[in-house]
């Protein structure tokens, strides 16, 4: 089963793994925090809309905010307690902006709502499974946090040949997927089969990087006598990225601007499969996730199961605090994760890791001039030319950068990682993407306001015209009247 044919990944880099810091430690559960900060937006799409008010008592697992619109996801109370605030709290986002958040004071009782357990989930219809996944507020736990139900529905309707389960976990430091595969393989495999059933996939591949032999073994053992095939992939960043894992496992490429469903593939993270299994089998909504606590500045790196909304400082305290002052705190992995400065930010559905890194681990230096060494080009898994894009962006020629493929960049950071000149390439790309989006918004707005202005001008012109016409009519009438009068007068005189 391990001998499945692999295709070549282009580009890619070999960052130092540093997974051993946390890989051998069992998943532990975090003690219940006092206060939980649950942001309304933890997923791609529209924020959820709260259905509770300040002062409401809620049970663990109770719906506290519902999905809004087509692309959105519901949010549930991570524990039982009282809603103490519906306000702003610092976002787990580099901007550090305050975002709408539900603050929950836990009562320590962990009183669950009633959960519906299902004995034979394969008796459910595929539609039902997707609906239950949606109701459980499950979003992709691989990082993109796209609402999973939607992905299932879209894939089912367009037809799926291959289901790929992403156990790549190519980011350095992170071991939460590794641990969950080692410890909860049976549940994951059932989740995988449920997903496959929900989208009627014919082939199921679990791709795991070969630096996780125990996870591979555990998953293999759990998938004996199932259609699930476990495939070991070479360790390389960004093997776990959706487009790249598809390329490596199937040899196919997702067309630019398209989705994997276009080529009959669905990709899900292994932790998502676990959440799906829990939701379908036990009716449990997504309330917690595994988080890797690691980095050279953390005293006891480990993996914890943390409730959504837990402030990060509690996690750090749980890991015995700092071994040395951290040069940088990061949410997620070092390659794509985001720096944060306020340790009060909450764990959200997409938080895969909390890293406290030392300066030597980061290894960043002042940027020096680009020597066009083209290392970045060789590293890019997408086949882009970062050096060319960045020079266009620096010269404020974003259109040219787009011609070079800016929009195809997956922001994996491979190029920045290898650049000997330490140029913040991805930073430039994300700036440019943001600026383009902002320009797009301005343009839309301008078009809209232009229509408004035109309408107003037209209206004013019409009013003027009507007024003038009315005046002319009145004048004509007056004149006609006068003429008539004159005529009558004349007639009278004649008479």
């Amino acid at each position, binding site marked *: 089963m391990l001998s499945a044919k692999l295709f070549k990944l282009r580009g890619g880099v070999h960052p130092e793994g540093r997974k051993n810091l946390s890989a051998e430690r069992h998943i532990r559960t975090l003690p219940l925090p006092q206060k939980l900060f649950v942001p309304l937006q933890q997923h791609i799409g529209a924020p959820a809309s709260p259905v509770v008010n300040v002062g409401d008592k809620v049970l663990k697992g109770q719906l506290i905010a519902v999905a809004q619109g087509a692309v959105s996801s519901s949010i549930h109370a991570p524990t039982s307690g009282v809603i103490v605030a519906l306000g702003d709290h610092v976002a787990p986002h580099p901007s550090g*902006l305050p975002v709408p958040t539900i603050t929950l004071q836990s009562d320590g009782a962990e009183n669950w709502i009633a959960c519906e357990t299902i004995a034979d989930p394969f008796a459910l219809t595929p539609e039902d499974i997707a609906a239950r996944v949606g109701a459980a507020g499950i979003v992709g736990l691989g990082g993109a946090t796209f609402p999973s139900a939607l992905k299932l529905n879209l894939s089912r309707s367009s037809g799926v040949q291959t289901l790929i389960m992403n156990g790549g976990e190519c980011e350095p430091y992170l071991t939460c997927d590794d641990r969950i595969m080692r410890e909860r393989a049976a549940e994951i495999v059932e989740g995988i089969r449920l997903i496959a059933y929900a989208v009627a996939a014919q082939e199921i591949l679990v791709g795991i990087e070969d630096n996780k032999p125990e996870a591979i073994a555990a998953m293999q053992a759990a998938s004996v006598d199932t259609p699930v095939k476990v495939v070991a992939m070479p360790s390389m960043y960004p093997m776990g990225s959706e487009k790249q894992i598809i390329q490596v496992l199937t040899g196919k490429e997702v067309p630019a601007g398209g989705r994997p469903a276009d080529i009959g593939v669905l990709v899900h993270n292994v932790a998502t499969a676990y959440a799906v299994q829990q939701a379908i089998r036990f009716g449990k909504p997504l309330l917690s996730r595994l988080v890797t606590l690691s980095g050279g500045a953390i005293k006891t790196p480990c993996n914890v199961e943390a409730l959504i909304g837990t402030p990060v400082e509690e996690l750090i305290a749980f890991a015995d605090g700092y071994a040395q002052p951290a040069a940088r705190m990061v949410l997620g992995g070092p390659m794509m994760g985001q720096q944060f400065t306020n340790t009060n930010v909450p764990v959200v559905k997409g938080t895969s890791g909390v890293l406290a890194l030392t300066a030597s681990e980061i290894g960043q230096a*002042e940027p020096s001039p680009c020597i066009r060494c083209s290392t970045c080009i060789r590293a890019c898994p997408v086949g882009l030319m970062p050096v060319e894009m960045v020079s266009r962006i620096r010269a*404020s020629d974003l259109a040219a950068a787009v011609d070079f493929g800016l929009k195809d960049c997956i922001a994996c950071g491979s190029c920045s990682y290898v650049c000997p000149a330490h140029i913040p390439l991805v930073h430039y790309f994300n*700036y440019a993407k*943001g600026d383009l989006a*902002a320009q797009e918004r301005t343009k839309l707005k301008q078009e*809209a*306001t*232009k229509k408004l202005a035109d309408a107003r001008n037209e209206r004013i012109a019409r009013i003027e015209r009507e007024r003038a016409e009315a005046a002319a009519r009145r004048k004509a009438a007056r004149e006609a009247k006068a003429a008539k009068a004159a005529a009558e007068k004349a007639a009278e005189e004649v008479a």
Partner: protein
Amino acid sequence: MLLSAIVSLTLLGTILGLLLGLAARYLKVEGNPLVAELEQLLPGSQCGQCGFPGCIGAAQALAEGSVSVTLCPPGGRAVAQLLAAKLGIEADLSGVADNVPRIAEIKEEICIGCTRCFKVCPTDAIMGAAQQIHVVFREACTACGKCEEVCPTESVKLQPIPATLQSWYWNKPTGALA
């Protein structure tokens, strides 16, 4: 020899003159389609901040090349860039303050409902009736500032739009790369 020289060259000249005259007559380009295209790019709020009586005037001046592409404050940098691209010139955009997006806001406490702002707004972004508090539609306001000028109680003010998770994006890196 003298004669032949003069005759032949005169002939050459005459023929060429006729040719050019013909060419000019039959191959004339009508009007300047550029103006219309440029006008399309301008915000169209006819606010006059550029010093022309409305966007069409600005478009004409641009087509003649008598003004810089940075003339339109409401359009800001984005429009300047579009204009420069259309005209095929390299514009020095450093002068254009990438103006912080702003929007009109009405302080309800001091609005007396005089409807002046309502009447001048070129995009119908202000709603209200006489003696009532007026409101601004965020989507329609172009921050042209006309209402600010006419308000007798200074209750309309252009305020920067606060950044949100949706509008925030990374700044441009400023490392010494020279």
